[in-house]
């Protein structure tokens, strides 16, 4: 990571390394920033995102915690109210369930419940996702619940560049921000700007692929799936799909989505989690209202089959929103 010295140009690195780079830069830039979580230090992160940081910044700033999510997420709320800039790592989003009260009923409420007298500038980093037979309790994508909570901001990078840019934006933001990472993407590589001032603005979607026949809207790993499907559609079916990577779920950039649908008149929304009461439900609700006259077909949704994810490989594969199922949904929507 010596290239970090440079401040111009880009470097090819993994999503995991991009997150680490964002934290290193912000830890250097701002004394108030510190990292807290289970196994972030000595163990270097259960998914190695924080590898090397304790060595560089010490135990006080890269703080290992006991297994007490409610306790240390709440401690981050207090530290943030006290003027610090905590970054909390939660091993996977499934474990946020034990800290739900601190996130939803504390962090999200602080600023307005206290009349704007104090804020809560904290970041929670955690991966969602499935696909490694982690089974029902460890394979969920629950970001919709946080995106449905006024007072929180939620971002979900799908590329290494956005991983750096959105995490830095979150750390510098004055409100609590949930950064939804993703297990399958950690190893994905991409060009990442080295400029320490590079950030990806919160609330701005990205047109990841331009196309004219249909719009695919996704976030996190679903964006990766959608981009593959788009290439396959072009090659096998001559279908030119536009892919919108939401990047932020709250705020949600509906303008960019609506502009695309106004052009393509058809849209399939994809998510890794359960669609019912999920991210794609909100997308469909807004798109059908914003683009009522432009839609030539109903807004279609693809996500995880609505079952707690089973262990067996064949069952898990069937349940996930695989590229085949996305492709089939697109073709169905086009006819």
């Amino acid at each position: 990571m010596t290239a970090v010295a440079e401040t111009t140009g880009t470097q090819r690195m993994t999503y995991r390394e991009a997150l680490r780079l964002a934290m290193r830069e912000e830890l250097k830039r701002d004394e108030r920033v510190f990292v807290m979580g289970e196994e972030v230090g000595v163990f270097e992160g259960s998914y190695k995102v924080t590898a090397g940081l304790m060595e560089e910044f010490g135990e006080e700033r890269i703080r290992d915690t006991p297994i007490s999510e409610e306790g240390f997420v709440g401690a981050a709320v207090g530290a943030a109210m006290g003027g610090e800039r905590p970054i909390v790592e939660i091993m996977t989003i499934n474990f946020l369930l034990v800290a739900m009260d601190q996130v939803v009923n504390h962090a999200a409420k602080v600023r307005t419940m206290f009349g704007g007298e104090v804020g809560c500038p904290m970041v929670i980093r955690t991966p969602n996702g499935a696909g490694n037979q982690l089974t029902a309790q460890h394979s969920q994508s629950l970001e919709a619940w946080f995106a449905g909570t006024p007072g929180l901001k939620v971002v979900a990078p799908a590329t290494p560049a956005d991983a750096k840019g959105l995490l830095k934006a979150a750390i510098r933001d004055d409100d609590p921000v949930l950064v939804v990472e993703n297990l399958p993407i950690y190893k994905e590589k991409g060009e990442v700007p080295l400029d320490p001032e590079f950030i990806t603005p919160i609330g701005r979607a990205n047109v990841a692929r331009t196309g004219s026949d249909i719009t695919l809207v996704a976030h996190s790993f679903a964006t990766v799936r959608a981009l593959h499907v788009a290439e396959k559609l072009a090659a096998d079916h001559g279908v030119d799909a536009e892919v919108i990577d939401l990047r932020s779920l709250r705020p949600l950039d509906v303008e960019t989505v609506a502009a695309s649908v106004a052009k393509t008149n058809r849209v399939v929304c994809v998510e890794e989690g359960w669609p019912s009461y999920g991210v794609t439900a909100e997308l469909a609700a807004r798109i059908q209202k914003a683009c009522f006259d432009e839609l030539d077909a109903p807004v279609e949704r693809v996500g995880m089959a609505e079952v707690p994810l089973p262990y067996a490989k064949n069952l898990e594969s069937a349940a996930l929103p695989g590229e085949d199922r996305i492709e089939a949904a697109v073709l169905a929507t086009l006819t």
Partner: protein
Amino acid sequence: MTTMDPTATLSPTDLRRLYEQMVLIRVFETESERQYKAAKIGGYCHLSSGQEAATVGLVHTMQEADQLVTGYRCHGFALARGVSPEAVMAELFGRADGCAHGRGGSMHLLDVDRGFYGGWGIVAGQLPVATGLALAMVRRGKEQAVVCELGDGAVNMGAWHESLNLAALWKLPIVFLVVNNGYGMGTSVERASAEPCVYRRASAFRMHGERIDGDDLDAVVEASSRLLRRAREEREPAVLEAVTYRYRGHSVADAGLAYRSKEEIVARQANDPITRLRATLREQGVSDEELDAVDRDADARVAEAVAFADASPEPQVSELARSVYAPGSGGQFSRMRPGSPFGEEELVFNGGLGS
């Protein structure tokens, strides 16, 4: 506010000042109940009548740089910490001049300038938050301490366990003040806690814990100044259990008699902290006239507070969404408008969102 470490022994002036505070709180709570019944105050309203000694004694031993976090039964703590009765009553009335500008109400008082980080409503939810404030102090390397108030019912929540473990493991400067008023709503300590001597639970974290008569002002001041100094100087957290009693119901909606007898309430009032302190002051030669004057002054202060609250304007509906997000967040949300639910445009996006 003094910045030198308060001593454990109270001077006559201290006693006099704390007596005034206790009377003010008692009168304020009584008036709050009246105003609630007059529908000037809404929501949940929890009174602390009977718990004044633990409240003012603890706060008296706090230094200016120390910080305070409490549960929802927080009127007394706010007043003791120096928040004006006007700002508190205006908050209870839901007015713009309230200490939380009418957005928090009775349960969510605060005053950051006085290091009071709120009144919180989820039982034991304030413990992790207070632990984090103590962690922030340590990161700044200052000699400060946090006081975290909680009730006897809160010690059965998991958040208690996780917070005390973190505080002890990380040697954080925090004193957990358990205001043991005998009941969590209608459930007595014995029916809720397998270890009814709450302070003993500190040992599960190799943390110091002790129990005091929370109606004995001297005992409260002695213990809390000692434990706070220890927290500041040695970074040793502690549990301080103050045994007291709640005269009124759990909230003004609760008559408070379904789970305890009138006799019990009367009996406990024999230990009334205000009566006890008044007796002490009389022994020290303060005249009944002077003490009656204190009562009259309190009545006047609270009457002023009510008048002020009544005159304070309601918050602007046009600013409904103000302070939901930090200033400047409006731009982040600017592209979220299309397809929004009915009314969102006007109420939220144009209602001060992030501005």
